[in-house]
């Protein structure tokens, strides 16, 4: 989306009171503190939203982490469980999710200890089927002896049959339909009968079957209908995450184990470089253009510029970016002026001149794509605001006084037309993060936008949390800054308390 496009209504409604008397710094300070205090509950809510999103996400964080690190030990069947536990302890997943949980009497408060989400889901479904936790627990615990027996068998004779039945046993952990469980139990039983000399396997399978029979015969579904609240206290995942955030530790990325804050800092460098250039250029060009258009309102210049700017504004930046990219970087079209390969790999020994020219070659296209949309929007806003001001009486007075046109426009008109420009300026802060997602993806810039998309795609939740929090904070700071700027630009604005 075009950087800095708030809605026509203005971004929000501050307590704007036009009051001629008091605009003392004390009021401003009190207002500032009040607004800053409001950040706390808002950020708290955003953190809840981000956390809830991560908990709703499909996929197992432990697997994401271990898969992306290509951990060899995970592939080893025997070690898998131990490694799984280690990783989940590392990620704090062995803790309850939140301070409390609503559930019912049938559910134990220790369900969170089953870390594997698939197994936990299976247990939930079985609980909804039978509602009898003690019976279910003994059934679930009876699976393990069978598994260990088969493992030992595997160590002595590794036939396909043993491996197959080990798989079947492990499959029981995640099977919840009655027919599926029965089939697996029957298969294990017949397998046990083929090796009658192995007594321990026999008893283990028999115990498992007995436990399942007990479970089926003693359902307690009535307990499902009695509500319960489980209180977990402060040692939970959310609390741990939030308190470490407050200490400035945003965790480590699932993908490569590097600290989130460092990854963000590195990405921010690129994003800031691109966006600040783009914003600077946009304002530099848009303000004189808008002023010219307003001065010559309804002339042919104004009308054609309005049309051009309108079309520019509607041009989807990602289309422009893609088109520019393919035409200017593919040799086939004979216009290969720019390069796209790795923006960050400038040779270490390059001179300053080389460095700058190389940077420019990389940055021209993305900066152009980031600029033109906001340029169109800002100059339109500038034109309309100034046009409205120029029709007012005090401008006529200024002209009648004989002031030069330059002074009339820039000193008397421009200052009063600043409001929409300030509103836009406030929306720049969050745009630094979210404004350039697509452009960075297209031009392969290792900035915040690309980082965001990559982390969302690979479900790197610590990254996503932090980015969401950061962008929320920047949005609020942007609003605050524009409110402060309103007061500076127009002495009539003051943020005194509403006196009604």
């Amino acid at each position: 989306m075009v950087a800095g496009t708030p809605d026509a209504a203005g971004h929000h409604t501050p307590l704007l009171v036009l009051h001629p008397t008091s605009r003392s710094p004390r009021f401003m300070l009190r207002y500032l503190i009040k607004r800053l205090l409001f950040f706390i509950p808002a950020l708290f809510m955003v953190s809840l939203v981000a956390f809830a999103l991560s908990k709703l996400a499909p996929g197992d964080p432990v697997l994401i982490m271990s898969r992306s690190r290509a951990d060899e030990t995970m592939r080893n069947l025997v070690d898998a469980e131990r490694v799984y536990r280690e990783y989940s302890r590392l990620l704090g997943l062995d803790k309850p999710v939140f301070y409390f949980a609503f559930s019912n009497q049938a559910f134990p408060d220790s369900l969170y200890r089953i870390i594997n989400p698939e197994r936990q889901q299976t247990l939930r479904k079985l609980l909804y089927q039978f509602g009898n936790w003690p019976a279910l627990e003994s059934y679930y615990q009876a699976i393990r002896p069978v598994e260990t027996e088969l493992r030992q068998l595997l160590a002595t004779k590794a036939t396909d049959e043993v491996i197959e039945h080990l798989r079947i046993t492990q499959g029981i952990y995640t099977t919840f339909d009655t027919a599926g469980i029965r089939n697996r139990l029957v298969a294990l039983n017949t397998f046990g009968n083929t090796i009658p000399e192995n007594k321990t396997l026999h008893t283990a399978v028999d115990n498992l079957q007995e436990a399942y029979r007990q479970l089926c015969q003693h359902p307690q579904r009535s307990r499902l209908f009695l509500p319960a609240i489980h209180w977990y206290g402060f040692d939970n995942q959310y609390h741990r995450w939030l308190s470490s955030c407050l200490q400035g530790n945003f965790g480590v990325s699932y993908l490569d184990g590097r600290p989130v804050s460092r990854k963000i800092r590195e990405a921010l460098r690129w994003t800031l470089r691109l966006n600040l250039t783009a914003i600077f250029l946009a304002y530099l060009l848009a303000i004189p253009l808008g002023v010219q258009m307003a001065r010559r309102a309804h002339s042919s210049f104004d009308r054609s510029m309005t049309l051009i700017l309108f079309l520019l504004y509607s041009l989807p930046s990602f289309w422009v970016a893609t088109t520019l990219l393919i035409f200017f970087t593919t040799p086939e079209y004979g216009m290969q002026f720019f390069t796209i390969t790795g923006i960050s790999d400038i040779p270490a020994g390059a001179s300053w001149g080389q460095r700058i020219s190389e940077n420019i070659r990389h940055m021209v296209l993305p900066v152009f794509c980031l600029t033109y949309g906001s340029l169109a929007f800002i100059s339109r806003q500038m034109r309309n605001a100034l046009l409205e001001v120029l029709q007012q009486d005090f401008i006529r007075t200024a002209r009648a006084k004989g002031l030069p046109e330059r002074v009339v426009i820039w000193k008397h008109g421009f200052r009063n037309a600043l409001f929409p420009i300030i509103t836009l300026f406030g929306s720049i802060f969050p745009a630094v993060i979210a404004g350039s997602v697509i452009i960075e993806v297209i031009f392969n810039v290792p900035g915040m936008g690309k980082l965001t998309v990559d982390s969302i795609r690979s479900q790197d939740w610590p990254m996503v949390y932090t980015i969401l929090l950061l962008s929320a904070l920047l949005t609020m700071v942007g609003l605050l800054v524009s409110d402060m700027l309103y007061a500076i630009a127009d002495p009539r604005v003051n943020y005194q308390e509403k006196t009604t």
Partner: protein
Amino acid sequence: MSEFTPSPDTGPAPGWKTQVWQQVQQRRLSRWSLRVLLVLVFLSIFGDFLANDKPLYCRIAGKSYWPIVQDFAARQGWYQWPADLARPDWRDLPYEKVVRTPIPYGPRQIDRRNLGLRSPGGRQRLDTPWERHWLGTDRLGRDVAAGLISGARTALLIGLVAMAVAALVGLFLGALAGYFGDQRFQLSRAMVIALLISIPTSLFYGTTLWHVFPAGAKSWSILAGIMIMLTGIGAGRFFQRRGVGRRSLVIPLDQLIQRLIELLEAIPALLLILAVVSLVRRPSIFLVMVIIGLIRWTSIARFVRAELLRLRQATFLEAARGLGFSHARIIWRHALPNALPPVLVTLAFGVAGAVLVEAYLSFLGIGLPPDSVTWGSMLQQVRESPKAWWLATFPGLAIFITVTVFNLLGDTLTEALNPKTRVSNL
């Protein structure tokens, strides 16, 4: 705006409609945008008759068929194909007579003779000139023109459904906040207690029953939840009538709704949409529409709120209140119609925004089914094959035109409804 409505049946005078119409007639660009919009609507409704692998009409073995119509009916279960035509390759059947669509390819149909990016003007392997891929093919040999036409339907649907959802939420919450404000929404204590009990109870038993009921009967649990809620409200009424807990509590609706809006707006919409869409386990286009709608209602709510805040003291609303009309009726019949024009402006811009968001999502390949053909997904292909300029140009142009049309319509509405800028002839 303080017109008094003498009889509630006539409704407020539709003054702004004529203004908008005049504005459309005056501005050449507005007229054109309306025409282009009509073309887009036509394409999305009748696209199947323009680009399809099935013929419009054919005669096989002395029997006549209208395959497109019959296929549509068959998919609804109204019609049964004869066994030999159940799953034919429509390209080579022993036709006696056949009338093809202008583009004889379906959007997802793979033309095996023209795999791997045939350019529009380049060599294509064809039996008849009619079969030419006028806008080329993509890597899988799918016709670009057919894809564009089916993409028009997706884009318009996205815009329409997403904004319908957004309008529903935005109008409801905005009207509540603006009409009642902080002081005027009052509930008796009995009702507050009844709601506090019945909402969690209905949620609890609704979800429990959802899990307990067998797969076919799950929707009954929703009904059960609603029944519990209604029972609770009924009990609240009962006690309120008997004078138990009649003292009323003021609910600061405006504050609550404003905080919600601020919370949603604190997170950049595109990021939030990306994050929420990536949660979806089974990608579907309708889910994406609903998600876009549920995230982008805030500006509509703000407009409605501001408008109703302004109208709250208007004499015609006082009069309606004096006549003893219910709040719901006053909001729906008297207040909201007057708040509609600014909402229309937001809706027009919102459709443009939703079309863009969909294009972004399918461009990034997040949230949409992998085999869906949309403008964004076609455009995305060019990143892997930069030589295929036609894959960048045509879908991008389609997105551009659609976005421009809706932006222009929004602009027209703004100018028509803004008395200061009404006279302008672009």
